[in-house]
């Protein structure tokens, strides 16, 4: 059954050996030249084990336009912590939005849209780009733990944003690689694009260099309007006045106690909880970097620390970063490079009830929500303080590279290790929840090892042309593991011991003494993925005008089925330097080039079970209790009925991408322009199609979903006021990414399918909402139309006065899911930013705007608010009232007063009543800086000193009626629970000498 070693690669090995032999001959004949060359050492930094990713980098390096608009030094002044925040809006075609202002929480990035529909958290993982730090492909968390979670909220564990492991002060450049010419060399992990981060080089001039960056600032507490029980009571009374006669809708109708007693000062008194909930936060950062050495050996060492604070719940995120880099050239032909980047992340999380309940998988009685009164809320917070929530991660990224160079032949060997571990130890005191304490311990790690070998040969064919050959093998081992335990009802609030002993050599390391054995739940899980890749690439360059590069690669993944283990993918990239061809003598054009690439990359399976085909697992649980491992305390093994049937012959999914673009730079006003147009067609993707129900399966994992993303990316900029006045300069740049996705095929030739209450239809977008269209309200029973004696109904429930009029799309006088229409989208059609920099003498003023256009948000928070009859006491997640329930949000005036008791569920969220325009423009950052180098430069031995003031998130322009159009979840739904993005003010300096 297993496919043998791919024969084309056998040819590759022969070619490789041939190439090597060729080199040996050349080596002999060019010996003199070699000695001459070696006297003039190449720059050591070439040994930094980075992949040369692009043909354009090889041939037109000087005329490349940065994919990231802002220089790293400017991004640094925002005081942010995560790569997501650094890159938000900075690159055309990269869509990043901060879904929560809670500092250090995980986030997502989408390069050129999404190619897999998103129904749950784990689908977000499918769409993430690869992040490469100095040649280290970073490993993140794996969504497999959602298997044991009853609610699709936070993943268990610390949930720190692991992409905050870099300190910008150490970073030379960040690039966003989008097209195949750039990404193909990274292989299947790069199917969704690459974020490439390159660290600064060490000095080589035998001088020590020290640089220092520090800032301090605040996150400003937001101003909110609070409400109390009286307000809520009056809101509800409108409905009682309209739809009831006696104040009760029916005999069983109960009015919540907390609203019915107007003498209860806790609910009816002053609503001043916000003083204890919202806070100003302290932000600071410091980084020191020392670098020294000469050309044969040099080093770099840096230490940094940063804190970002949220504006509520004392949420904080702290990181400590240390980095060491060493380059040696012990022999003339031998180069050695190593770097180690270590990061520690601590996070104080939100205290939301729903996050806590979801983790406990237990909902207490919800009939008495937190009161809006400050004293009561403070008392509650005191109970919180009896417990703890230690949430931290350690990240270690390291690589060791050796490279041998003789003449034009170079061999590089790199060993890369990336490791991160997360811990979350928490304890909630008994008083916090009906006499039930709760403890949980999480330890998990993600680990990646890569062994990378590249042979390079720079073959100068003649005076006009050269051929650069490259062959590589990459072996990669990934492991994800977690140990998790939680327990309820400890003996008291003083013993908060860990449930798991760290030392698992003890026989009883899993036995807890402080919690009842019957209420301790333990989980161990591990998943692995190995990837083997070979590629060879030839890049031909003629007269510095034309370049062509062909890359052929073979990838084998352990998550692919044994019969379909290997995938062969080619990529062709072409470049034409118009400047050299036609404009040699035209001084206006600094550069002008046209690029085109077409290629294919495999798309990896995220889960190892796909590789097994039909398998057996322990999916025996049921809604609300997914962790049932068996029956009668024996492990059970059944087919994966919940995940769905997986057959054999599942091929690799792959993405085809065609990209054309051109860039030019003018000598006047430093104008640059870059345009890319792409078609990205991701094919053969597996999709769980709801089917085989009569065989017990929820889904049939079938291959054949095709999604096409098309788009145009533009970045343009230059000096608006430039050289005319030496003292004042204004330059401006804008980048825009237009993106559109379309489902082009479903498995098995299906035309449409409904999954997780979202519809997928061939020819439509994959991120559309699926809603009923509101057309008003029935004001009297008599208004409800009748056809053939059947009154218009909703799934058989007759409409009455006070019910919404929903558009009857198919005209059958019956409203059902068939009348729901696909509307809007949650991935914006246009996203980008607009940067303006003003310089006057040594001052600079920089302002950057961030915008999303053509995007919708489903305002579920308002749906929940109006749906109070269903939500009150329903004992599900939607009926959990956070303290922020007592905040006036949204625009009540937008919504008609339907009958909230109606069985048609008048305020259900899936109607266009709650679908809003989510487009916005934000003034993301303003900074004012002053360069003191002229004044102090002499005493700093030619160094620099720069001081600045900055403000982030100053204002938002949007039609959205909710709080902030950015803060919606991964499916474009605003549930109102995510923390607002803080408005921050900071001041800082950068010094180097």
């Amino acid at each position: 059954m297993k496919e043998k070693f791919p024969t084309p690669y056998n040819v590759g090995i022969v070619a490789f050996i041939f190439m090597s032999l060729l080199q040996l001959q050349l080596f002999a004949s060019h010996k003199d030249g070699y000695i001459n060359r070696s006297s003039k050492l190449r720059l050591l930094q070439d040994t930094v084990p980075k992949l040369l990713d692009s043909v354009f980098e090889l041939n037109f390096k000087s005329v490349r336009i940065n994919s990231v608009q802002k220089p790293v030094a400017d991004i640094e002044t925002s005081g942010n912590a995560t790569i997501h925040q650094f890159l938000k809006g900075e690159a055309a075609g990269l869509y990043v939005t901060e879904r929560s202002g809670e500092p250090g929480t995980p986030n997502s990035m989408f390069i050129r849209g999404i190619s897999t529909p998103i129904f749950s958290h784990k689908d977000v993982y499918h769409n993430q780009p690869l992040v490469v730090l100095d040649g280290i492909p970073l490993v993140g968390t794996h969504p497999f733990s959602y298997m044991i979670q009853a609610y699709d909220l936070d993943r268990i564990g610390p949930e720190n944003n692991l992409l905050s492991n870099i300190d910008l002060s150490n970073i030379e450049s960040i690039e966003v690689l989008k097209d195949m010419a750039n990404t193909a060399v990274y292989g299947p992990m790069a199917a969704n694009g690459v974020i490439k981060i390159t660290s600064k080089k060490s000095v080589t001039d035998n001088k020590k260099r020290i640089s220092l960056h520090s800032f301090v600032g605040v996150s400003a507490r937001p101003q909110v309007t609070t409400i109390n029980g009286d307000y809520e009571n009056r809101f509800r009374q409108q409905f009682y006045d309209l739809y009831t006669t006696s104040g009760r809708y029916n005999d069983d109708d109960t009015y919540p106690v907390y609203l019915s007693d107007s003498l209860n000062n806790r609910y009816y008194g002053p609503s001043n909880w916000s003083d204890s909930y919202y806070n100003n936060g302290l932000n600071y950062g410091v980084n020191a970097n020392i670098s020294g050495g000469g050309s044969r050996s040099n080093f770099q060492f840096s230490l940094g620390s940063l804190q970002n604070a949220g504006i509520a719940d004392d949420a904080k995120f702290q990181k400590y970063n240390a980095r060491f880099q060493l380059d040696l050239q012990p022999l003339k032909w031998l180069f050695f490079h190593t770097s180690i980047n270590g990061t520690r992340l601590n996070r104080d999380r939100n205290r939301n009830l729903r996050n806590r309940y979801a983790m406990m998988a237990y909902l207490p009685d919800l009939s008495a929500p937190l009161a809006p009164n400050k004293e009561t809320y403070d008392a509650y917070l005191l109970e919180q303080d009896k417990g703890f929530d230690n949430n931290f991660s350690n990240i270690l990224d390291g690589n060791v590279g050796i490279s041998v160079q003789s003449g034009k032949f170079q061999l590089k060997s790199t060993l890369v290790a990336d490791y991160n571990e997360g811990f979350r130890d928490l304890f909630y005191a008994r008083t916090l929840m009906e006499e039930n304490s709760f403890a949980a311990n999480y330890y998990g790690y993600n680990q990646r090892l890569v062994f990378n070998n590249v042979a390079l040969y720079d073959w100068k064919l003649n005076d006009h042309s050269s051929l650069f050959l490259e062959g590589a093998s990459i072996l990669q081992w990934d492991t994800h593991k977690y140990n998790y335990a939680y327990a309820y009802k400890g003996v008291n609030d003083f013993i908060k011991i860990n449930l798991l002993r760290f030392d698992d050599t003890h026989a009883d390391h899993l036995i807890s003494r402080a919690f009842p054995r019957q209420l301790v739940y333990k989980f161990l899980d591990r998943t692995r993925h190995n990837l083997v890749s070979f590629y060879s690439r030839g890049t031909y360059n003629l007269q510095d005008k034309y370049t062509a590069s062909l890359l052929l690669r073979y990838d084998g993944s352990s998550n692919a089925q044994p019969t379909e283990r290997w995938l062969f993918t080619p990529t062709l990239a072409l470049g034409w330097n118009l400047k050299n061809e036609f404009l040699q003598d035209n001084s206006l054009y600094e550069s002008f080039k046209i690029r085109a690439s077409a290629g294919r990359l495999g798309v990896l399976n995220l889960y190892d079970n796909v590789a097994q085909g039909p398998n057996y697992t322990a999916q025996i649980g049921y809604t609300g209790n997914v962790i049932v491992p068996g029956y009668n305390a024996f492990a059970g093994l059944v087919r994966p009925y919940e995940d769905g049937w997986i057959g054999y012959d599942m091929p690799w999914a792959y993405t085809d991408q065609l990209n054309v673009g051109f860039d030019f730079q003018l000598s006047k006003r430093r104008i640059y322009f870059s345009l890319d147009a792409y078609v990205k067609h991701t094919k053969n993707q597996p999709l769980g199609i709801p089917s085989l129900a009569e065989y017990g399966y929820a889904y049939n994992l079938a291959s054949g979903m095709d999604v096409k993303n098309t788009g145009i990316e533009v970045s343009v900029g230059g000096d608006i006021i430039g050289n005319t006045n030496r003292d004042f300069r204004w330059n401006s740049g804008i980048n825009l990414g237009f993106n559109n996705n379309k489902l082009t095929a479903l498995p098995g030739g299906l035309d449409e399918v409904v999954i997780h209450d979202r519809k997928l239809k061939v020819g439509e977008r994959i991120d559309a909402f699926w809603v009923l269209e509101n057309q008003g309200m029935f004001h009297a029973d008599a208004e409800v139309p009748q056809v053939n004696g059947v009154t218009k109904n909703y799934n058989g429930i007759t409409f009455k006065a006070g019910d919404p009029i929903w558009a009857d799309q198919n005209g059958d006088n019956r409203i059902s899911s068939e009348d729901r229409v696909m509307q809007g989208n949650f991935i914006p059609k246009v996203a980008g930013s607009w940067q303006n920099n003003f310089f006057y003498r040594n001052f600079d003023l920089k302002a950057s705007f961030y915008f999303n256009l053509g995007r919708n948000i489903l305002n579920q928070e308002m749906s929940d608010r109006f749906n109070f009859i269903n939500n009150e006491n329903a004992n599900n997640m939607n009926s959990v009232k956070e303290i922020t329930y007592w905040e006036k949000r949204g625009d009540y005036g937008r919504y008609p007063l339907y009958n909230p008791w109606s069985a048609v569920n008048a305020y259900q969220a899936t109607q266009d009543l709650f679908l809003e325009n989510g487009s916005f423009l934000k003034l993301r950052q303003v900074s004012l800086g002053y360069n003191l180098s002229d004044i102090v430069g002499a005493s700093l031995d030619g160094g620099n000193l720069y001081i600045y003031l900055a403000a982030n998130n100053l204002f938002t322009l949007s039609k959205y009626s909710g709080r902030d159009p950015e803060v919606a979840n991964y499916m474009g739904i605003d549930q109102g629970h995510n923390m607002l993005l803080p408005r921050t003010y900071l001041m800082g300096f950068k010094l180097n000498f």
Partner: protein
Amino acid sequence: MKRILFYLLFLSIPFSGCENMLDIEPTRVVSEENMWEKMEDTRAALMGVYGLTKSALVDRNAFWLYGEVRSGEFAIPVRRDLRAIAANELNANDVTLETLRNWRRWYAVVNAANIFLERSPEVLEKDARYTVNNHQVDMAQARFLRAFAYFYMSRIWGDVPLITSASEWSFNNKPREEKGKLLAWVEQELLKAAEDMPFRYSNNDIKQQGNYYNEQTSRWDGALATQNSAYAILAHLSAWQGNYPNAAAYTAYIDENYSHSNINYATTANLTSSSGFFYDKHSSQMFGFPGVWAHVEAAFTGHIEELTLAAPVVNKSIPDMYMTKETVVRVFDEAKDQRFSIDTLGNPLTEVYFTNFNGRYPIFSKIKCIMAGVSDPSFRIFSSALVFTRLEDVTLLRAEALAVLGERNGAVDMLNRIRENRGLLPYSEEANGDLIDAIFQERHRELMGEGHRWYDMVRYHKIKNNDPDFVKLINEGGIYWPIAEPLLQQNTLLEQNNYWK
């Protein structure tokens, strides 16, 4: 040159052995190749079928929503989904009802059983420890659980597709099988399964020798289906079909043999104790699915307590469902009933069935296994067993069958067995009215909250034929549930139940 050759050698290392690198034995699933190798696999697969059956029964508390809430006899204070079920608005747009309209979980049971029946013989050849007898008993249980699943589905949806093979390489959609044919097949299957099922496991039963899977009797009592379980389902099936002669015969078999399974009648005290009949697992749970506290099987959901209990029994302000005082008094209308009766002042004699009777919400607290069978109200995690049938149920079913067949004395005997156990005087027509009515009244009281009531009502109205609305519901197929929309879309051979079109 040397160094380059050395380097080439170094480079060649990764070229070997990468094929092995791509074969990872998964730790999270068992692959096709590694299953059906040893007796631990058959045990895991069989326990899997039991586990799936329990999950199908308790998912979103379906067992009680189908069996109790649908009767409309419970009052529903807040939950809109339950209210829709009680009002027979089974098409309501709600995630709970959507789940209850969907039979997929039951077909998971069928599929797992089908796979077991087809694949477990492989282990016989591969593992010498796996005996023919062990295999036979395993097969009988898989067959039984598959038949039970079909019986259960037929009570909910009427006609359902009959799928008797795993068909793993050629899944094909099937139309619904007419319920008469389906139930006839179920009956044959149950009889066939019963032939190989022991009365008790690890008890040197003639059908099952030695320790079953090397575990003792106590491990299996109350957890596995026995021959008596099979006959109890046969009796229910026959009664549901209106085939009372068969129902009488099957119940007679149990009446003769229940002691072989170590089954006893429960005392009222035991029945209603929080650590009594419904707690843990034991042989008197004739066919049930335990949630054993000691096995860490207690759960927040999937137990009737989640629906019925509230303050003061547990910390929850309003129960999901409760019985109004009026209903309670109407049902428990006899003095000195140990389960519930009121004195002349209107105060309850005991609080075992109903707590807080005179409060706003009388709490139906017959089953109240909180944690280790304690009365601590603070943590709503429950450990009661789902008991599908017990001796009292079978006895009353026998009474019903005999009454319908006109064997009045036998019926009265059976009825009096239960009445006597609950402190009631023997049945008399003058005091207790019509015999059939009295038997169903007794079932109502005795089996309240055990998921029987709706089906009892259907049988009662079929026998009595005097309630035009209900009879109309029966005749038009309104006693069945609508089939979930996604099922109809997946399988175009299916047709919606007429009543719900």
